[in-house]
């Protein structure tokens, strides 16, 4: 288990330097986010919930997102490049960054108190 983790992190680190070359396509990213199953735990909007963290407007850099997806050994299962390519993850990154910023709850009557 521990060995696997070290291996995964090394692999992930290699990817960091290779990725983030081109800006992704948000439209394509939306479709990939759904069809590769990211939405299942993170919500269609990447809003997060009881099964996954919020990803919309993520503070992570793009290569950080890719490294996480490849190397995670915590609560999220890893996705290798065999399942999802770096280019697809770049598109997903663009989709997540294109999500509208959440409103201040004070401006939403049902959340104002």
């Amino acid at each position: 288990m521990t060995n696997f983790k070290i291996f995964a992190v090394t692999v992930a680190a290699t990817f960091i330097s290779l990725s983030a070359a081109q800006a992704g396509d948000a439209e394509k990213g939306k479709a990939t986010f759904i069809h590769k199953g990211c939405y299942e735990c993170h919500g269609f909007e990447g809003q997060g919930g009881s099964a996954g963290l919020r990803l919309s407007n993520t503070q992570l850099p793009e290569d950080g997102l890719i490294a996480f997806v490849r190397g995670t050994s915590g609560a999220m299962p890893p996705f290798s490049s065999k399942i999802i390519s770096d280019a697809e993850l770049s598109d997903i990154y663009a989709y997540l960054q294109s999500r509208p910023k959440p409103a201040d709850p004070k401006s939403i009557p049902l959340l104002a108190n």
Partner: protein
Amino acid sequence: MTGPVDGVPTNRRNFLRGAALAGAAPALATIAPAQAAVPAAARPLPSALPPTAQRIAAEVGNPEAEGNRIGGKAGSDFMVDVIKTLDIKYTPSNCASSFRGLHESLINYGENKSPEYLSCTHEESGVGMAHGYFKITGKPLMTMVHGTVGLQHATMGIYNAFCDRVPVIIIAGNDLDAAYRPPGVPTFHSAQDINAIIRDYTKWDDTPVSPQAFALTMVRGYKVAMTPPFGPVSISLDAGIQQEPLSEHHKDLYIPKFTMPSPPAGEMGAVKEAARLLVNAENPVIIADRSARTAEGVGLLVQLAELLQAPVVDQGNRMNFPNTHYLSRAPGVISTADVILGLELSDFWGTVNAYSDNGVNGIGENGTKIKKNTKLISINASELITKSNYQDFQRFQPVDIAMPADAQATLPALIEAVKSALTADQKRAIEGRIEKAKKAHADARNRELQTAAIAWDASPISTARLCMETWAAIKDQDWSLVASEGNVSNWPNRLWKMEKHHHWIGRSGGYGVGYGAPASVGAALANRDLGRFSVSIQSDGDLMFAPGVLWTAARHKIPLLSVMHNNRAWHQEVMHVQRMASFRDRASNYGNDLGPIGTSIMNPDIEYHKLAESMGWWAKGPIKDPADLGPALKEAVAVVKSGQPALLNVWTQPR
């Protein structure tokens, strides 16, 4: 049941009837006035010919009016006398021949009151209704099921009730007499020991073989079910003793008195030691799961928490602690605890340990959520009924003080022990915690509100929006949330103002899916009688196990607002299969769906609003635009207030 052979009454029941005729039974205290009986020989033999008008009149007429044809009071009439002493208000059941004697007695002799028969379309629904009903009233219902096949249908509901420590009285019809019972179907539906299939997850069962034995069994069963830890009990009820008339042999029948048992409280030495640990702690944390059996239990927990200024984590298998109280806290607070008091925790191991489902080899990883030397105190009545086979007792967790006792019954003594153990210095130190606690509570609420705002306008509708629109629509009623599987990211418990015990009835216990719909109808029935407004967050996968309970709600005029969390999948399984695929380095095969094949409920989409409408509900949907939800809820609330059930089919985000 068979006819006489060579003039000899071969049937045990005919024989007993004969005996009843021969011996006058005026002394039977509980027996109805003697009726003139039709001698067995005068009754017609079975015939394939169409019945005469006279015969039809005899079959459908009221036997009491024209004289008792069975030669005495029916055994099942006496059973109704017994049941009536226990003040059981309803019997949600699906009809079946093996309890036809009791059924007939309940609705005719017993005038269909206490208990009133509620028509169910599935035995699992009957048990689920009893489960939900108890959690509002604290009183058990009785459900009748057909021996073998009906009981087989009921099993998952019984397991849920067992895990959730909820009493249900199950009466399972069975035709024991292999020499005389009808051949064919009724014999397929009989067994030596029908209770065997549920013995691992009932508290007690019995097979009484006489009306008197039934009286003892019924009252004992009720008592066992109602002694904490509560749990289901089952009575296998022979068809013969239901149908046979009472005879001379039964002349001394009596109904034993029921006395409500007191719950088992913790031993005083252990209580004092627990108090000592708590008052000396710098960061005591209280965790409650099924601590509050009643509204009084909530008040006791508030008292204890305030005495210690200890944060409380409500794990939510009951409504234990008001989430508006400044000491209410999310589970993460235990990481700083030096003493943890666990009250009726269904999983103490899982409370203080972490488990990550991340094993490439299919094995998860264990971790800890607490500091190394944290002292653990457990008060838990469930330890009094540990069984072997089913694993509801969870992984073994060593603790420092173990009290196998009812938490609510132990709290008064613990509160007193804490009061007398506290020194003046400790009291001052404890008061110093208040401001920090208030700030932590306010900060946490602000964070929750910010999180709820994310994807507020999304379609499908976010679970936060679903819950907050619903909250806005019901918050001015005397409301009660009667089911929600928590898979709406737990928003009601995070943001609704849960202050009263009936605001939340907890979860299913055994996590057997299919609990939500019937439990919400059962709890709504209880709330109806108390004049309260019931609301449920109904998931799609849960509803499809036994949707017939919708009809039961309409049929018996049970008002309930059912707001669907329709994510069009058994979404937990969507994620499980996805996880497997990722670990195995494979892209998951979705077919034409939005989740791995076999996990979606789409193509075609189920029109739950039409399903509900077809069973007599007011319903609307599918609602996909969040802007449509508020107005639809307003309409639905008005319908429910008029006494009808209403369902909104809302398309939602997965979690």
